């Protein structure tokens, strides 16, 4: 990709306000998620927001702030592989939702514009060790929590669902990468890093059926290619022979060129095969999300070099496209050689479950290093920024978490969180509420505390 093009695609984050300090974290058990693996006891040196040294014998330079980890665990920051972080504040309050495109737009929807750096969910995400997240668009949905009965209620109380042309609404829009730094005026590291499509039951709901969706998708990709070759015709105002608008077609060009990955939410084994075939025929770069039946097609996924984002707790036949869901999906995909990221549920603040889900995957057969990679370096690889984040290696951004213990354990919490070398405040609203009410009563209402 040319530098000019790269710049044109980037919404760069505001430069970090304060010059990051020099910090040495010593006496830590370091889980690097990189080539160095686990360092039983060692240190990391952070300067200018980067990792400048890591190893068993890091000597802090004079003037560096030294943090003695006393044997606690240092890991790369968790990377949430597909979330609504920053674009949805309260699930049950639709006015706080910016994760769906609406009726006028599809592929061209750029979720990055709606990211709110002041979201109270971002400090909560940091409490789960999350230092970067991919924000991915979804189809419009009702609010009110995610439990079955609440969905049922939402369905009963919602008005008619939005209708837009099938061609446009097949594409949910474009994802962005953000970091969870406190105080930044813009959290977006890079926008338009992937195009999102729902396949299977959700896709069929829009297109009419799976077969209809395949045909519509192929038509959309064809239209984008024709548009690319004949922009002048479109620019003259000639009729566009497509379901898609000019903006949607423009957004699909990097997808059909195989430069921007297409994130497809897909669940049953047959659909995964179908999407693999579609991508082969259309020469698309794929990322798959969901893949509850991925374990049935592990070899095919590995052969195609297609990575997957999975929820390792998903083990129920919640729909007819997840009948084969099982707890060892992660372990089996890993054994098949599939590049995999483990995510928390995307609803409200469940993004914080990613680290626990990694632990659940370990309990069900995934190796510990593979589980660590699945929430750190793998999402960085999948989304194309492994040169900057995802592991503790010299030269990478100092996105680090010092944990009170094993990062996957229920009893563990983050002792210190660094984003790009800056230690973050642990000031989540939920912690402030906790501290207010943990104080002994003093005759004044808690609002005075």
């Amino acid at each position, binding site marked *: 990709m040319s530098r000019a093009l790269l710049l044109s695609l980037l919404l760069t984050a505001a430069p970090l306000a304060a010059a990051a300090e020099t910090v040495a974290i010593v006496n830590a058990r370091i889980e690097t998620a990189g080539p160095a693996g686990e360092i039983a006891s060692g240190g990391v040196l952070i300067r200018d927001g980067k990792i400048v040294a890591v190893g068993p014998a890091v000597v802090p330079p004079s003037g560096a702030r030294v943090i003695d980890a006393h044997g606690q665990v240092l890991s790369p920051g968790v990377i949430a592989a597909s979330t609504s972080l920053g674009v949805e504040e*309260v*699930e*049950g*309050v639709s006015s706080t939702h910016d994760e769906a495109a609406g009726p006028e737009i599809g592929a061209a929807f750029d979720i990055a514009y709606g990211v709110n750096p002041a979201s*109270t*969910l971002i400090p*909560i995400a940091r409490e789960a060790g999350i230092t970067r997240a991919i924000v991915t668009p979804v189809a419009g949905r009702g*609010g*009110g*929590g*995610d*439990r*079955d*009965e*609440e*969905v*049922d*209620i939402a369905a*009963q*109380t919602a008005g008619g669902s939005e209708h837009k042309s099938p061609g446009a609404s097949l594409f949910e829009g474009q994802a962005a990468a953000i970091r969870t730094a406190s105080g930044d005026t813009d959290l977006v590291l890079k926008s338009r890093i992937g195009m999102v499509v729902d396949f299977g039951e959700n896709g069929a709901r829009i297109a009419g059926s799976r077969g209809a969706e395949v045909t519509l998708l192929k038509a959309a990709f064809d239209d984008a290619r024709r548009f690319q070759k004949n922009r002048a015709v479109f620019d003259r105002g000639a009729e566009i022979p497509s379901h898609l608008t000019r903006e949607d077609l423009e957004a699909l060009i990097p997808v059909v060129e195989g430069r921007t990955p297409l994130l497809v939410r897909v669940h*049953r*084994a047959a659909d995964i095969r179908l999407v693999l075939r579609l991508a082969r025929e259309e020469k698309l770069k794929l990322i798959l999300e969901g893949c509850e*039946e991925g374990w*049935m097609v592990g070899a095919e996924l590995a052969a195609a070099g297609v990575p997957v984002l999975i929820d390792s*707790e998903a*083990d*129920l*036949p*919640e*729909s*007819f496209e997840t*009948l*084969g*869901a*099982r*707890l*060892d999906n992660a372990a089996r995909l890993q054994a098949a050689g599939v590049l995999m990221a483990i995510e928390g549920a995307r609803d*409200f*603040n*469940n993004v*914080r479950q990613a680290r*626990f889900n990694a*632990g*659940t995957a*370990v*309990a*069900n057969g995934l190796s510990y290093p593979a589980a660590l990679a699945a929430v750190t370096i793998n999402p960085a690889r999948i989304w194309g920024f492994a040169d900057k984040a995802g592991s503790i290696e010299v030269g990478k951004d100092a996105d680090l978490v010092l944990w009170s213990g094993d990062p*996957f*354990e*229920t*009893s*563990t*919490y983050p002792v210190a969180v660094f984003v790009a070398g800056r230690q973050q405040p642990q000031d989540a609203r*939920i*912690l402030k*509420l*906790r501290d207010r*009410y*943990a104080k002994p009563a003093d005759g004044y209402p*808690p609002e005075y505390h």
Partner: protein
Amino acid sequence: MRTPWVLAAAMAVGLSACATDTLSQDKADKPAATTASTASAHDQKPLPPGLDPTVDRDPFPSTYHPLPSHPTAIVGANILTATGVEIDGGVVVMVDGRIAAVGPAGAAVPAGAEVIDGKGRWVTPGVIDGHSHLGVYPSPSVPALSDGNEATDPNTAYVWAEHSVWPADPGFDRARAGGVTALQILPGSANLFGGRSVFLKNVPAITAQGMKFPGAPYGLKMACGENPKRVYGSKGRTPSTEMGNVAGYRRAWIDAADYTRRWDDYHAKIAKGEKADPPKRDLTLDTLMGVLKGEIRIQNHCYRAYEMATMIDISHEFGFHIAAFHHTSEGYKVAALLAKEGICMHTWADWAGFKMESLDGIEANAALSHRAGACVIIHSDDPIITQHLNQEAGIAMAAGNRIGLNITPAEAIAWITLNPAKAAGVADKTGSLEPGKMADVVLWSANPFSIYAKADKVFVDGALIYDRRDPRFQPRSDFELGQPGEGAFQ
């Protein structure tokens, strides 16, 4: 013929008056009651049993029978009894479906008992999920099976969750693999009065009756807050506001009190041999009357502190007791009040923020409230979380210990065992490892609060109902048989 009738009536009144937790399930009572209904005073025609709500209060009786068991001892495991005790390397003995003994290392094992080596593993009471919609909102989540909310009227106290339970829900099997031995299945929260809950043993069965926990009292699901007013407000009906909700509760309790008085008057007259017109039976008011008589336990979906306080005032106004609040994101704000009122609070470890009424949910909710003396329960309300309640309790315990509350595993285990048994009114039968109680027991691979812990063996009434290492004890639902994956899980 009159004597047994009077006796039966007196028994029924006595049962109500002493506010027992338990519906009479004793079959010995039933013939007497039925005979009584057919006998009548003087020239009065006997009232058919279906028209008198006090005659057969168990019309869908449990047909549960424990699975086969043999004397079993788990030796050498760390034991959390849920009564505040942790025993390192102790012995749990199960005989004839009951806990026969719980003791330290070296305690006697009866001759002939199967001995399970528990070394390095942990034993707890069976996990009880106090808030489940398994069966009523089963997997697959399709409209044909979504039977949890009779969202057609704000007061549907007349519906019973057990009539919506689809026993083939694979969620029951997954929950069992997570150590869940009993569940309270609740109607949803669309209505002010959602209907009766049912308490189930988590054993595979063809009917809901085959899962019903013998002797468990019924619950009545009530709902505070956003859901009822949203459902009915959107239909242009009351309630459409919080104040509309409260008016709806109070009007219903006034009707229930009137109904109760009319039946009491009727029975008093009949008992004296006087002529009396029976009131018309009303299924809605039957359930509310059961609450007023202390037989049916209020299970109240209620997130916010101020709503809980209002519900408590209403309970005082009409003279009933709330057994438990559910969800209680703001429980920590009124934990002392809940402790004083003897009301349990069900909550999650870290689910919060998904709607306005859950915005103030904090991870330390359970721990802070526990330290304030409240009866705390970690519940699921979800078919995935129900499989991980042990870890959820671990997360909640850790949030307290992070601020120095020093909650021990011996305490926190009660959040998913003894306390939900208390809230459901079955704590005299299950929920802790105490001699004489039902042998509902889990053998865990590790400290149950660890993310890596898995249920290795699960016992209900002393019978092995799940074994992680033995496919013969990994039941698969009819629904999953022959489907992709075949419901295989570890």
